[in-house]
């Protein structure tokens, strides 16, 4: 237990180092221009990282798997479809596309609604084989993706540019007003979720054992699914889809901490995601000098890791 605490402290130190590097390196006294913008980006990255980490770990616990994440299950594709639909039907000048706050809330409601419908159908029965669920997730994702592509082919090329902006997660043009809204949503959701932390530990023993120990299983599962849907939707609406990010940080936390305690796992996953996002953005900006984006790197690394996990899973079962 003590060693886990030490690990968490070391990671916290790394987060601080990454943040300081990112905020203060090459600042050249630009306190009025660069500093507030960099701080805002750090805040956006912290919110995204925390939301994705919490949502993914809890989602994986209640679905009893370590491979599927809300993003992989099609929430990202739903986001793309929503954005394309808005521009296709209403046009980029319409308030739903042009006003980022309105767009944010439309995306949020759309994704949470989609997630709840999806969960309702998929997780009604416990113990569905993971590969079946994965398959359903991929099919739903492909279906939504094809619809999106179909609409994008028909769309006016100038309008398509607007859609394209939304296709990749980016911290370079995060809307300041949205950061504060997202912050409130994430803090409130996680503060509520944190009170259920020890019940999540019991949930990993399976439905019957959890109920035997006095946990209202179905109630907790439902609450947690809603919380994770809200968090994932918030982060996606804020910066765009980073499909494989949750998968990486959650699995790193499992491998690194060897515990069933969610207070440790979730905190660890949060710290991992902040190190990856803030440290990664620092590399993208200062090393690659913006020649690529962070989400490209993350999806590249995450995709490889995903394949590795699938291969390992299929070998063990």
């Amino acid at each position, binding site marked *: 237990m003590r060693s886990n605490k030490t690990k968490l402290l070391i990671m916290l130190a790394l987060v601080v180092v990454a943040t300081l590097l990112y905020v203060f390196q090459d600042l050249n006294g630009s306190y009025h221009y660069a500093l507030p913008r960099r701080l805002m980006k750090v805040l956006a990255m912290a919110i995204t990282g925390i939301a994705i980490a919490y949502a993914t770990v809890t989602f994986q616990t209640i679905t009893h798997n370590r491979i599927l994440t809300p993003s992989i299950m099609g929430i990202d594709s739903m986001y793309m479809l929503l954005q394309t639909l808005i521009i296709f039907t209403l046009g980029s000048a319409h308030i739903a596309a042009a006003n980022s706050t309105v767009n944010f809330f439309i995306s949020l409601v759309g994704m949470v609604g989609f997630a709840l419908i999806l969960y309702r159908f998929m997780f009604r029965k416990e113990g569905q084989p993971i590969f079946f669920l994965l398959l359903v997730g991929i099919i739903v994702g492909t279906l939504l993706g094809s619809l999106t592509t179909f609409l994008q082919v028909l769309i006016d090329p100038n309008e398509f540019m607007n859609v394209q902006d939304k296709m990749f997660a980016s911290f370079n043009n995060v809307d300041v007003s949205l950061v504060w809204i997202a912050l409130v949503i994430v803090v409130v959701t996680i503060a509520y979720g944190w009170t259920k*932390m*020890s019940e999540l530990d019991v949930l*990993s*023993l399976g439905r019957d054992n959890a*109920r*035997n*120990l006095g946990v209202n299983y179905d109630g907790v599962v439902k609450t947690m699914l809603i919380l994770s849907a809200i968090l994932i939707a918030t982060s996606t609406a804020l910066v765009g889809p980073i499909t494989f990010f949750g998968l990486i940080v959650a699995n790193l936390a499992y491998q690194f901490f060897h515990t*069933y305690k969610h207070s440790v796992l979730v905190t660890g996953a949060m710290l991992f995601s902040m190190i990856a996002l803030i440290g990664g953005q620092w590399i993208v900006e200062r090393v690659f000098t913006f020649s690529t984006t962070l989400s490209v790197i993350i999806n590249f690394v995450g995709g490889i890791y995903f394949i590795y996990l699938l291969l390992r899973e299929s070998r063990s079962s």
Partner: protein
Amino acid sequence: MISVKEISKVFGKKKVVDAVTVDIQPGKITSFIGPNGAGKSTLLSMVSRLMNADSGEVLLDASDVKTFKSNDFAQRVSILKQSNFMNVRLTIRELVAFGRFPYSKGRLTAEDEAKVDQAIEYMNLVEMQDSFLDELSGGQRQRAFIAMVIAQDTEYVLLDEPLNNLDMKHSVQIMKILRKLVDELGKTVVIVLHDINFASVYSDHIVALKDGRIVKDGPTNEIINTEALREIYDMDIPIQELDNCRICVYFNSK
């Protein structure tokens, strides 16, 4: 006392449990026996609230079990099902400590630790308490799960086929421990059993089910005889008395 009143459960078109009424005698081992698909496990699941009954009610000390708060109920009745698939890696001690969850909500007090120690000792798991569950044999794992239920320290302990997949030695070990739970700690144990001879040798009371209905309900010596068993299993089973144990010799029966 637990009393089951007119309880029924329907899966699809089949009545798996059909208007069953039975009282669980306190301070005794009661075995549920009967052929496959008789509804034993379903009945046990409904008594322990893992499953909701379609009609009828289960009373714990004269009040409906549905009216209990989950947590209060978990301090009085515990259940262990057959399959215990888990996605996390736990040591025996960590698993047993979960038995204290209804009391401590994950923050173990000194009293909780003492109960965990006791349960581990009771199941002879002291030396291996820090081994991981997935490194254990089926018998050791089953003992770890029973230790969790013992740590839960409830008046009623319900077990769904705890001897499944265990060899003779471990089966006997577990039945002896259940006997001790009743005789020394005054618990009430309800157990679903497949092996009629374990039911005969270790239980005080037997409830026999067939096609969702109770066909026999009485003290062990009233059930373990050729006529009663014919009604339950449709087999002619000779009974042999050996060292004060009534053994059913069913291997050659028609």
